[in-house]
């Protein structure tokens, strides 16, 4: 059986998707409800069961303290970084949270870290794919905003691991989109991907030619997206309500959730209508109603959209290009459906943007293409290669609190740098290094990535050891560090204190805990595997019926087999694992003699010297021989 399909996953702020490549084309895998988009919403129901997606959405309004959305905004971040988010989103933090600890969010009576919440979403997507393939899915490519820093990327990888997925690669969202766009071999030239999603904004400039997708420069803002537009409108509505109706509903979770829903619907409507009406039921029987015109809307959101201009200009500057030199502009992300956004990109790049691709799905489709490449490639992808870059400069803190940049932003990855250190004190056996990401001069203005403690330096007089430290940013954009004392050849042991991340141990524990929630998964898997086995035996039986051996059976035997076959067919597509299991076992028993007879025929045919082709040998042992049953435990 071929190796399991590697899937491509878009883990979005607002919606998530899973896709795979079939032949020439990537396809999104729908959920059980038939929909391609899984809202990135997680809720804990009354029975403390986790719900994901559309099923979780109603909790947002009815019992908002049991639900969470846009958790991507919290991934890889510390308490200090999310102050803005806390003001704008109803995130409820765990009561006992210490500073420096990984954030935990309350859902009902339980608390979860952002990677755990993302893992619930990933697990849902995994299940959808497994149901679709009727086979296990264990490997995936997951996309991240190009501007995500190391901690945010690591958090995403952790989420994958907790969900039981081997994350083969993290791909930057604009790059993934360009893959979907560039599947058409005729595409070449300079492409700008403008990706305005729910929570993050990325702009990437790529050079496409001969199947090579080379990112030249990337920039963005990981605190900017459609959510900000929503929040602005909500704030205006809340002010209105206080002014017109004298009500302050800011603290009323349910009211705010209703307003949010109305505001989002209006926003979407305004992409194709000249005006939209807000109509919200408030507590106490009051109603909030307001008409919003497109002009008003565009004026309100102008400052938010303006924030995308700076990064675009910087990216062009880093790429050494003028806007006119861009051949194509590709729009990604639901927010790019807003006509004002389209006009903005038209002005920026002096051309009409390409809007053929579905902005909600293009990233997942691109991830599926990358998954295909990693899996060995197929006809259409075998000439394709992605050359991506690191978005932020990597630096070390040196004397004076200054950042010494060792790998510059927009360097193609994998990229490395080697630094040499020595000791200050006689006999000193470890060296501490503080690694940062960012463009600023002072260490305190950059993002602390981690503190590396190099241990095991052989004791020597001060200044004598020569510790070679190698910094490597891999193809996922994540940093790896290795160190060696050169005089002794001793590998240094590196203790990593991630500034905003989970340690390996914590991830392992979460993975174990996740098995509680994996009950459902396990059950699903059992059923899927039993179904497969049922299908195998039924197929083998169908062939068996066409073989001469069938004729050698008694009529009574044939009748019995036929009845059991029918019974199995009836239960196999149902949800009763035990019924399917029983059906398989009894049919196996009943067809033992048939199997033996078929084996004899095959052997005797071979002995008679017939050509392999002539003898129906493929009907024999190989095709899931009922007696030689695999152990499915």
């Amino acid at each position: 059986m071929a190796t399991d399909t590697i899937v491509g996953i878009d883990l979005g702020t607002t919606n998530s998707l899973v896709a795979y490549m079939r032949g020439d084309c990537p396809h999104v895998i729908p959920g059980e409800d038939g929909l391609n988009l899984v809202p990135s919403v997680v809720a804990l129901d009354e029975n403390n069961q986790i719900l994901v997606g559309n099923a979780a959405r109603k909790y947002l309004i009815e019992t908002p303290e049991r639900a969470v959305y846009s958790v991507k905004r919290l991934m890889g971040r510390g308490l200090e970084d999310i102050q803005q988010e806390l003001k704008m989103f109803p995130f409820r933090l765990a009561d006992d949270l210490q500073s420096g600890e990984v954030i935990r969010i309350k859902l009902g009576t339980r608390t979860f870290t952002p990677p755990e919440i993302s893992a619930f979403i990933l697990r849902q997507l995994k299940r959808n794919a497994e149901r679709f393939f009727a086979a296990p899915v264990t490997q995936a490519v997951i996309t991240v905003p190009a501007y995500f820093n190391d901690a945010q990327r690591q958090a995403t990888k952790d989420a994958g691991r907790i969900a039981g997925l081997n994350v083969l690669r993290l791909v930057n969202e604009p790059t993934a989109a360009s893959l979907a766009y560039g599947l058409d071999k005729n595409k070449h030239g300079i492409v700008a991907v403008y990706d305005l999603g729910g929570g993050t904004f990325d702009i990437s400039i790529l050079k496409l030619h001969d199947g090579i997708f080379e990112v030249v420069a990337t920039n963005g803002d990981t605190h900017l997206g459609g959510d900000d537009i929503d929040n602005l409108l909500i704030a205006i509505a809340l002010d209105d309500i206080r002014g017109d109706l004298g009500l302050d509903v800011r603290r009323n979770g349910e009211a705010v959730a209703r307003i949010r829903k109305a505001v989002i619907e209006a926003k979407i409507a305004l992409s194709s209508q000249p005006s939209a009406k807000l109509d919200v039921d408030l507590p106490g029987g009051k109603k909030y109603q307001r008409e919003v015109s497109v002009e008003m809307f565009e004026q309100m959101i102008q400052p938010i959209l303006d924030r995308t201009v700076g990064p675009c200009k910087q990216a062009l500057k880093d790429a050494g290009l003028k806007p006119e030199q861009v051949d194509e502009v590709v729009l990604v992300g639901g927010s790019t459906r807003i006509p004002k956004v389209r006009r903005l990109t038209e002005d920026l790049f002096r051309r009409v943007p390409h809007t053929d691709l579905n902005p909600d799905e293009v990233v997942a489709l691109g991830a599926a293409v990358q998954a295909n490449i990693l899996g060995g490639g197929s006809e259409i992808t075998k000439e394709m290669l992605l050359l991506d870059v690191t978005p932020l400069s990597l630096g070390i803190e040196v004397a004076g609190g200054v950042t010494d940049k060792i790998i510059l932003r927009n360097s193609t990855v994998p990229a490395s740098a080697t630094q040499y250190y020595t000791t200050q004190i006689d006999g000193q056996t470890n060296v501490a290094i503080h690694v940062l990401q960012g463009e600023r001069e002072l260490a305190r203005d950059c993002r602390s990535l981690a503190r590396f403690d190099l241990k095991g330096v052989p004791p020597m007089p001060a200044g004598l050891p020569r510790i070679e430290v190698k910094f490597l940013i891999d193809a996922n954009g994540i940093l790896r560090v290795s160190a060696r004392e050169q005089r002794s050849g001793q590998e240094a042991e590196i203790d990593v204190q991630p500034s905003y991340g989970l340690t390996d141990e914590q991830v392992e524990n979460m993975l174990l805990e996740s098995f509680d929630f994996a009950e459902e998964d396990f059950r699903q898997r059992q059923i899927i595997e039993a179904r497969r086995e049922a299908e195998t035996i039924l197929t083998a039986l169908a062939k068996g019926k066409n073989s001469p051996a069938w004729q050698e059976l008694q009529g009574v035997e044939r009748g019995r087999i036929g009845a059991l076959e029918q019974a199995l067919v009836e239960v196999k597509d149902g949800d009763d694992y035990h019924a399917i299991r029983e059906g398989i076992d009894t049919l196996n028993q009943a067809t033992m003699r048939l199997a033996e007879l078929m084996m004899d025929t095959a052997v005797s045919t071979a002995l008679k010297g017939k050509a392999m082709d002539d003898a129906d040998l493929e009907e024999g042992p190989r095709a899931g021989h009922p007696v030689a049953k695999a152990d499915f435990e």
Partner: protein
Amino acid sequence: MVAGAGCALALNFVMTNAESKSSLIVPGQVPREATPSCWSCGTMRAVHFCSSCGKVQPPVPVDYFTFFGFPRKLNLDASQLEKEFYALSRKLHPDLFGQADSEERAWSLEQSSMLNDAYRTLKDPIRRTEYLLRLEGVELEEQSKKATEKARTSGELKKQVVPADLLEEVFELNLHLEELRAQKKLGEDDPALLEEIGKAKLSLEEKYDALFNELKAQWNRWDRLVDSEASEGTDDDRRKILATILDILNRRNYVRNLVRDVNEAME
């Protein structure tokens, strides 16, 4: 993969700077061992993959020129370099080793990071020049980390030698800039002064460009030397050319910093 004779000779050189604490060590500067053989089929190996069976090889520390199979010359055909970069990327990139075993994956990771670093360095004319100087054992004054650290901790300005031919110009310009800064503090505005400074800046920018042409002339001298392969008195000639190049780079950096100061003052 072309490894010119010039390359093999140049690699015999000993790391005399090993004892110094500066980060002068140039990536890949290690004497080459006896040619190793392919782990998969036993044939002698080329730098990145076996020329016989095509399997990726563990990375061997080599300098960036050798990595690309280019001679250690300063003139470089940018399009040829790019072509080679893409060709090597297609063979070494980690994405292509998704299904390979962990050892090959590790080698591909190291090889492709070296490929990217090498490409980045050789692609830019100044970086390429500086790299060659370092390979040849020349310490770049401006980039001396020790000097920078010392300057930072002591708070002093790093000592920069003013190029002789610019002495007068620099002196006058600095006076003007002082005046400008003083005026700004008082909120005054002197268009005549700004014009003077503007002209000075233009002159400096012209010098900057001229220096690049001087550099290219030295490139040609160096390359001719490398081509000639004459072993008599070559070392001395090499040192001379390298010293000249270093001087040009330093002067160019000085001018660049000066223009930057002017821009800052004029903001």
